[in-house]
């Protein structure tokens, strides 16, 4: 599956294998994205979905409000279609969680 990553260092086009997490596919392609827990919990890998659809069911803590605001935890996200993502959205996702009274580790 085609994944476009808009990072602060530039745009990367990577290919994600079936069932592969986007973070893992990025690492395999030489693009290191932020992450700590790799469990879909700590929000370090937060990204914003610009286009497409992802399966986030493997995340430890992901809320309907996160989906509604187009936040994605790429360490545990599998693309269901071709996707475009803006990475490095950790701070923005924490602000979003705090504003809604949802858990925001490291915040």
């Amino acid at each position, binding site marked *: 599956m085609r994944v476009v990553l808009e990072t602060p260092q530039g745009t990367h086009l990577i290919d994600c294998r079936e069932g592969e997490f986007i973070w893992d596919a990025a690492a395999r392609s030489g693009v290191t994205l932020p992450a700590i*827990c*790799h469990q879909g*919990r*700590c929000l370090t890998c937060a990204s914003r979905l610009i286009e497409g659809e992802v399966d986030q069911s493997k995340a430890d803590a992901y809320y309907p409000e996160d989906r509604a605001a187009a936040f994605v935890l790429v360490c545990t996200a599998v693309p269901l279609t071709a996707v475009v993502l803006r990475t490095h959205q950790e701070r923005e996702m924490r602000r979003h969680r705090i504003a809604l009274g949802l858990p925001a580790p*490291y915040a």
Partner: protein
Amino acid sequence: MPEEAVPAGDVSRRVGVEVIRARGVDVDKLIKMLVANAAAEFASTYYYYTILRMNLAGHEDYKEICEDARLEDRAHWELIVPRIYELGGSLPNDLRVFHDQAGCAAAKLPDPPTAANILTLLLESERCAIRSWSAICDMTFGKDPRTYDLAARILNEEIEHEAWFIELLAWERDKKSIPSGHFRRGEPGEAPYSKNRQLYNP
């Protein structure tokens, strides 16, 4: 960044904080990360490992190793909490709020609670801990020797725990021998790194 002067007798600020801030540590962020890691040690692992250990009936060897990891995680909690307060931080007054701030997933009893499933969960919990404490080491290396020392002690034990659970899971699930390279602890929860220099860590 120059160190901010702390006037003589001023108890509202700490030189121990100003010197690390002057060396480039984002102290507010560090406190938040330490609270998240403390929550993971206490709420995501120590508490849930108690339940996992209870459910390893028939596997006395696994129970003993799980007990070591459980008690050492408690030692990590005891070791790091004083540092949070030294830095000017504090723990949330509500345990539920504290639990939700944990940077690692709760190690809840898997369904079905087979030994292989429990060992898999233990392994992944230790891996999250390694990543979390490595992040603290990265933030503090060369800038905040006290936090670095405490985090590195904890990291040493988390790395040993991962090796134990790789060995046990490889045998239980795959009948493969992948030695951890370690011998047994002297007594349960010995915590050779995080308790050999106590910082109120009984």
